[in-house]
């Protein structure tokens, strides 16, 4: 364990983006706590790989939608966190609103909003004591402009998270805690691997840079937002989209 290294908690660490974010923050010098649910082997392997590369990571498996799961995760954190990156996301189903069960909305909102609320209410006090901390949500370009159709459960959860991020950015700006978000375009990950090639090509053509996002693109943006280089940045929703959105 690297003594004195700042701690960073990453949810959804076994996912494509979560893995890239975790690896990048470890290279940046963070002691990374890797959380996911039902992916103990994957996050264990990721922790080993990070260690093999000279970094420091600890797997902290637990269900962030359950109080007991969050309690277990918090108990596993070996020091106060200086960064929290929320990458966890529920699977995305394309359905028209009237054909979307309320349970789908509950699941998306629980992961996007309730889970980070519960985690932050436990880790924020320690950040406030040292007046230092950075929180980043991984959202989606669907939070900017008109959202795609058939994604009301997923997109509304992400937009609610965006609202929460902004509220917290306003409340804690004077206290040294920064809250931001990154909104990646369609990203090549295991979560999106089943998307038909024709649809992926459509998304690719809509991006001026002519390629889909990689998990490392988002990881680089997260790295910036938790670093001192962004010390005057809070409340930002940063699109990572190859020019598809120009704000």
């Amino acid at each position: 364990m690297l003594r004195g290294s700042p701690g960073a908690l990453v949810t959804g660490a076994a996912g494509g983006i979560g893995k890239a974010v975790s690896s990048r923050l470890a290279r940046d010098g963070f002691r990374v706590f890797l959380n996911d649910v039902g992916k103990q082997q994957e996050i264990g392997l990721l922790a080993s790989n990070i260690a093999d590369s000279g970094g420091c990571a600890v797997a902290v498996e637990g269900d962030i939608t359950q109080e007991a799961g969050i309690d277990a995760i918090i108990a596993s954190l070996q020091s106060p966190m200086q960064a929290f990156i929320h990458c966890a996301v529920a699977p995305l189903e394309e359905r028209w609103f009237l054909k979307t069960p309320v349970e789908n909305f509950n699941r998306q909102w629980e992961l996007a909003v309730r889970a980070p609320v519960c985690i932050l209410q436990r880790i924020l006090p320690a950040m406030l004591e040292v007046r230092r901390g950075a929180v980043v949500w991984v959202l989606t370009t669907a939070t900017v402009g008109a959202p795609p159709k058939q994604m009301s459960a997923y997109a509304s959860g992400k937009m609610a998270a965006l609202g929460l991020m902004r509220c917290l950015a306003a409340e804690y700006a004077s206290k040294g805690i920064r809250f931001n978000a990154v909104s990646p375009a369609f990203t090549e990950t295991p979560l999106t691997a089943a998307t038909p090639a024709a649809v992926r090509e459509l998304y690719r053509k809509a991006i001026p840079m002519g390629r889909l996002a990689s998990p490392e693109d988002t990881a680089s943006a997260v790295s910036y937002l938790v670093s001192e280089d962004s010390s005057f940045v809070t409340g930002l929703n940063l699109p990572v989209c190859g020019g598809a959105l120009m704000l």
Partner: protein
Amino acid sequence: MIIDRINALFQEVFDDPSLQIGFETTASDIQDWDSVAQVKLVLAIEEVFNVQFETEDVAGFKCVGDVVAALRRKGASDG
């Protein structure tokens, strides 16, 4: 009838149970028929009729009638 099965797919893709297409229906006849809907329609038709269209086939679809003709060439029947 092939056209009836395609009509059902249009109703699903556009979420409009009242939608009625014809052989002459084109993208300009349905407001939400954009490139995303086009891809979803093609994928749905391929799945339901168990066919695979080539890029040249899809590029040649100017109206629903062109799709029906392509399906018939691939062995689909009105029976």
